[in-house]
């Protein structure tokens, strides 16, 4: 076996598997622990006391707790791409080969150079940085801030892509239970017996909560036996799901809860096909929070010395892990519960140095325990601890009455009482309420359907936890409609819990409130002095409670000290707002599989795989992959390919997959009337067998979308939208149909995916179509005129829809076939068109031809343009109401100096035009007052053999022929351009009509 002996491991006991030794490394040194250990318990068992350095002062720190509230023992776990900063050693399960390193120290944990910060501690008080580092101003980014940044932060992120996978899932239940301590298990029993569907989440890998460390007798059984019996009963019930390694971290509206399951963090890496962690969205009718309580420290000088540990944590290490944090233990307590640690330590054969009890009275039973155990009980408080990297050496005690005493010990257990875990119950901004008898906040104003039980509700006795948990489980089940008899609750005795509140012991030296952020009692006092009295100001000014533990061990003590110095009560002082997640959750888990190529879904056109075969280059358009161009051998860049494609269309025939357009079937007797209301122009008078371009506005009068709509039957229109707006237009039309115009008899369905649609364009279009369309169909200009639309038969028997519309300005048709024929259609077009040199073209060539033709598209339909801006103002009907009609008439929207669509071409034909260049009057120096518009769309026009574009330019259409300046400082370009007719190609439309 590698590594030394486990010097601090008891020879028997504990919930560890001694037959499964595991070797692990901490800061490069090899140790051995057991299956069932956490990293922290294994370090304890190996006598390691120093595990980290604090945030600001780099003080040596040890292990304070045994749970997810740990503020000190944070490590970098794993190495390489799997390195996880700020991992709590107290919750990290040990596995064979585990590697961990301490953080925030250089060059080593024992010899940390940054510990010099402690010398500057008198200056580094709360908020000191707000008062300095201001001169000279330039020094902030250059010097001060980088230094602060390097010093701040704790661990280092891996810096390379996370190799593990995550997923997300949904679960549903009647009763959700957080925590598997006595209250949680009792709640599960009651709810399960009542017939409820139950999910119980436990963040630990073992079930039982505090029972695992504190034991007890339930139903006359030892706690461990009771747990086994209970789990067996739960397993026999039909709908109980127990999820270990799962933390309920948040509660959201409608009974949705967030939970994180650490599926494989207890292994070196996830097994094949498995995820590291899974994010659960659990929908529950009721939730019982049995998340227990967190023992709180007492603030005294040197309370951060390694070896100072929460009393309950010390019990956990000794009982559950058979590991001894110290050999000679002192206890500092203000309550009865702390004394349990003495009993545990004595049972384990440890020495008790002394008990320092801040209360006036110690029970006779404990007095006799002291005399039996041979230790003294000091009535007073710990005022200081001596020691350092190697742990506690000496403890100074201020006795009640003023005397002082010293105690030699190598460990100090501290119990300041217990704070119920009020996180979950407070996440809907409910404020917990103060309970004087336990000097703690308990849940109040919990989210709907949520209730706390047991220690989480401030009732700490075992008997009470069982009773309350059981009652809460039964009533939650009842509320969820499950009424079977729950039977009897488990029974146990209630222990006494008498407490005298004690938050802060005055003394010399730094006394820490927030360990991780190095916030001391005097920082809290300073904050008060400077007016940061509100607890939220206190938090923000001192950073109290903002560390990775979110102040689980520090917040209440901080506000108690603030209350004391400001002369208010604790409830008057109040708490800060509780924020989810309850424990920090990996960002990867929230993302699930939505990363890399699967970040978003991908939509594929019917010809996609064929285009892949052709070697097409694809472009992302929304979720779509569209063929952008089809490179051919010998072409040196995209422009070569696109130019070839455009020329092939203009000179012959080409086709392009336009299936991405939104397609909507509009049915019903009132379909025409409906379209009249959503478009600015009229559709009710469109003849069957004809198509028409339409433009729709938003209700605010600005252009929303455009497209061609055809009338296929008296009561059936086929509407198309732009690719970008397909879903939104459908939503808008449904709103019009269902909400605005319910009196109209009209039905809408998306048929976007039903039809594969291709544009076939070029002078040889008709020749190509004749090859593929049934010879009986009349495709002549008379038989199928421009803007005609009808169903035709294709050779081979299938039906298609043919629309004589043109985006390119050429003689063109769009053809639709049912989508599963899409690929066959493409192949047939290639086959039939070979003789005509048919050329598939992509979205770039499509774009070139639409710019040449002056058609507006996305860059011009940008949500701020009017119909008139686009040159389509005359389409606005004056004979009917339509969406956007009234608001479109506002003064600024009809002002004569608006920027309107115009053509733009460089005066130097060799010059490349770029989108985003601004238009400035010629001869003027560019400035905000003469910025008259910008170039919206550009292309290299093979037809004109130069770059051309469209722009939105002030009074553009009145200025055709004017030479202006294209100003593009981003790209360092300035050149003259001419404003021109936006229709560069075939302005009278002869080609598309021919």
């Amino acid at each position: 076996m590698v590594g030394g002996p486990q010097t601090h491991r008891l020879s028997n006991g504990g919930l560890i598997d001694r037959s499964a030794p595991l070797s692990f490394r901490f800061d490069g040194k090899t140790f051995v622990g057991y299956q069932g250990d956490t990293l922290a318990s294994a370090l304890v068992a190996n006598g390691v006391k120093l595990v980290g350095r604090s945030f600001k002062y780099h003080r040596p720190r040890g292990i304070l707790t045994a749970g997810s509230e740990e503020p000190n023992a944070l490590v970098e776990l794993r190495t390489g791409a799997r390195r996880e900063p700020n991992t709590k050693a107290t919750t990290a399960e040990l596995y064979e080969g585990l590697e961990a390193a301490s953080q925030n120290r250089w060059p080593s944990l024992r010899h940390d150079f940054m510990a010099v910060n402690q010398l500057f501690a008198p200056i580094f008080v709360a908020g000191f940085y707000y008062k300095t580092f201001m001169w000279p101003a330039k020094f902030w980014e250059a010097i001060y801030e980088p230094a602060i940044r390097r010093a701040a932060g704790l661990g280092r992120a891996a810096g390379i892509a996370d190799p593990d996978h995550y997923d997300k899932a949904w679960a549903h239940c009647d009763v959700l239970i957080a925590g598997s301590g006595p209250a949680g298990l009792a709640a599960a029993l009651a709810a399960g017996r009542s017939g409820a569907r139950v999910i119980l989440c436990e963040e630990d890998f073992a079930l039982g909560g505090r029972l695992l460390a504190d034991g007890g007798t339930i139903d006359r059984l030892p706690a461990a036996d009771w747990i086994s019996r209970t789990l067996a009963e739960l397993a026999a019930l039909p709908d109980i799901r127990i999820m270990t390694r799962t933390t309920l971290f948040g509660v959201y509206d409608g009974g949705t809860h967030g939970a994180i399951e650490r599926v494989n963090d207890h292994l070196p890496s996830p097994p094949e096909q498995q995820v590291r962690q899974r994010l659960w969205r659990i929908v529950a009718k009721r939730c019982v929070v049995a998340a227990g309580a967190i023992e709180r420290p007492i603030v005294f000088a040197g309370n951060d010395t390694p070896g100072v540990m929460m009393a309950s944590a010390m019990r956990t290490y000794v009982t559950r892990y058979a590991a001894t944090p110290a050999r000679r233990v002192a206890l500092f307590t203000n309550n009865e519960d702390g004394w349990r640690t003495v009993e545990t330590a004595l049972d384990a054969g440890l020495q008790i140095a002394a008990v320092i009890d801040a209360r006036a009275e110690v029970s006779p039973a404990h007095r006799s325990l002291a005399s039996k155990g041979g230790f003294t009980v000091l009535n007073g408080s710990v005022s200081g601890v001596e020691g350092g990297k190697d742990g506690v050496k000496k403890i100074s005690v201020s006795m009640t009455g003023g005397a002082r005493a010293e105690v030699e010990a190598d460990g100090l257990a501290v119990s300041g009482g217990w704070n119920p875990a009020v996180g979950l119950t407070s996440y809907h901004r409910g404020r917990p309420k103060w309970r004087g008898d336990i000097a703690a906040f308990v849940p109040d104003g919990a989210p709907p359907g949520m209730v706390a039980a047991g220690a989480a509700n401030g009732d700490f006795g075992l008997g009470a936890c069982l009773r309350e948990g059981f009652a809460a489980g039964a009533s939650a089940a009842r509320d969820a409609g499950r009424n079977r008899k729950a039977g009897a609750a488990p029974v146990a005795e209630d222990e006494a819990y008498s407490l005298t509140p004690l938050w802060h012991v005055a003394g010399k030296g730094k006394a820490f409130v927030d360990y991780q952020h190095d916030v001391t009692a005097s920082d809290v006092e300073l904050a008060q002095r400077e007016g940061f009295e509100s607890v939220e100001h206190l938090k923000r000014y001192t950073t109290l409670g903002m560390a990775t533990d979110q102040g689980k061990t520090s917040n209440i003590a901080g506000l108690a000290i603030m209350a004391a110095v400001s002369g208010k009560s604790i409830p008057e002082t109040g708490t800060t707002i509780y924020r989810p997640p309850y424990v920090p959750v990996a960002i990867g888990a929230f993302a699930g599989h939505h990363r890399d190529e699967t970040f978003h879904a991908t939509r594929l056109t019917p010809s996609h795989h064929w285009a892949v075969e052709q070697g097409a280059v694809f472009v992302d358009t929304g979720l779509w992959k569209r063929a952008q161009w089809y490179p051919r051998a010998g072409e040196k860049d995209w422009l070569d390919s696109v130019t070839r494609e455009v020329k092939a269309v203009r000179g012959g025939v080409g086709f392009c997959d336009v299936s991405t357009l939104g397609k909507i079937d509009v049915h019903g007797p009132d379909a025409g009337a409906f379209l009249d209301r959503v478009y600015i122009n009229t559709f009710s008078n469109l003849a069957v067998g004809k198509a028409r371009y339409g433009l729709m506005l938003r209700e605010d009068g600005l252009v929303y979308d455009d497209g061609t709509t055809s009338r296929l039957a008296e009561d059936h229109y086929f509407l198309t939208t732009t690719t970008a707006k397909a879903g939104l237009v459908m939503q808008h039309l449904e709103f019009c149909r269902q909400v605005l115009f319910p009196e109209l008899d009209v039905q809408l369905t998306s048929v976007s995916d039903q039809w594969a649609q291709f544009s076939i364009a070029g002078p040889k279009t008709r020749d190509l179509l004749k090859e593929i369309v049934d010879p009986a169909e009349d495709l002549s200009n008379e038989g199928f005129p421009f803007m005609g639309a009808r169903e035709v038969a294709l050779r081979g028997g299938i039906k298609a829809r043919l629309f004589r519309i043109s985006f390119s300005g050429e003689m063109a048709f769009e053809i639709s076939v049912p989508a599963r024929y899409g690929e066959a259609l493409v192949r047939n077009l290639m086959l039939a068109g070979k003789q005509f040199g048919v050329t598939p073209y992509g979205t770039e060539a499509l774009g070139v031809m639409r710019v040449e033709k002056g058609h507006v598209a996305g860059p011009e339909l940008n949500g701020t343009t009017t119909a008139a801006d686009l040159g389509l103002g005359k389409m606005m009907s004056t004979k009917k109401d339509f969406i956007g009609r009234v608001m479109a008439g506002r003064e600024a929207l009809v002002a004569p100096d608006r920027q309107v669509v115009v053509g733009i071409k460089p005066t130097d034909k060799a010059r490349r035009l770029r989108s985003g260049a601004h238009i400035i009057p010629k001869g003027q120096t560019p400035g905000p007052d003469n910025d008259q518009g910008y170039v919206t769309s550009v292309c290299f026009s093979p037809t004109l053999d130069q770059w051309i574009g469209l722009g939105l330019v002030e009074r553009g259409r009145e200025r055709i022929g004017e030479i202006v300046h294209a100003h593009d400082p981003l790209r360092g370009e300035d050149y003259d351009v001419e404003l021109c007719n936006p229709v560069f190609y075939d302005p009278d439309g002869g080609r598309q009509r021919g």
Partner: protein
Amino acid sequence: MKYSIFSLARAALSGHKNWQRTWRDATPKDRYDVVIIGGGGHGLATAWFLASEFGIKNVAVLEKGWIGSGNAGRNTTIIRSNYGLPGNTGFYELSMKLWERMEQDLNYNTMVSQRGVINLYHSDAQRDAYARRGNTMRINGIDAELLDLAAVRKMMPFLNFDNARFPVQGGLLQRRGGTARHDAVVWGYAHAASALGVDIIQNCEVTGFTRDANGKVTGVETSRGRIGAGKVGMAVAGSSSRVAAMAGLRLPIESHVLQAFVSEAIKPLLPGVMTFGAGHFYVSQSDKGGLVFGGDIDGYNSYAQRGNLPVMEDVCEGGMALMPMIGRVRLLRQWGGIMDMSMDGSPIIDKSSVDGLYLNAGWCYGGFKATPGSGLVFAHLLARDTPHKEAEKFRLDRFQRGAMIDEKGQGAQPNLH
């Protein structure tokens, strides 16, 4: 007491016992020349500019809770002036210039950190839109650079360039953009304004307006009694509609929740502020080391100051898509602020139709970066009764006139801005 390293060192010698309150704890007087409702960044900045720039020192700032308890204390601390439309461009640059001298103006370190803001683009269309915007900035004398893929790769080699669903193609960079310490901005203005005589009154909730016979506002009713005022200015983002309603006004504003998130503190990882162009996600790293994330608003009217899971997931999906190295970094805290979403996504700074009542509202989620600029132009309006020249387009009647300032082109649907 002037703050400096020397005063700090002196104070250290006396155990920091001699520091005074950062701002005076004032009790309300009967009457002020100007009462500002809202002790957030905008309200406090307005008060400071009134006192320092316009010589109006008989000013009270009324805050219903603790100063900075609204959006000033729950934003993602980003400052930038990369806006593209007339009205916004000049105003946000005015604000940026004020950020650049804030610490010296206020004698308070607000940690203005100009580490750059980059908007990544993933398509030609986005590039063109950024080119248009960047050129607008340059024409207005604002720094802007259009980076290509190689330049982005050099600056941020850790982004997912190889197997992204929407690969990064470049970015629009404003080097002068960055972050500031949000709470310190509030405290700094409070500190400086208080020193000039402004009364900062916390735990003082406005419950109504007092009006004279002509309907002119003469003061406010508060939880601490009636306070008279020559003029009343509202700077209560998130609550604008509710406060305005007390004066009988309806506003073109909806209240929406915007969430933000911070990770555990880690050693320096990210250079500046990054905005993902293929999803709804932006991020920067705080001085303390936490990655600060934001995304889209939740999308429905809310005053609840807390968000729901879908947006949280959406933001993390964006984060992982852009930089899969953050998978094992843990999210520490989630919170929500209430945004004053206006109908065009741009703010409103104007006199209201009620005499004596002035509006500063509708900041959507751009309010933090506007803080100093908003303070100056609102103070100008309150002091001179005419808009500051950089706020002339933020008039309330622009919606009636059709002169919206709609950067996103989404129209009168606030949840899309």
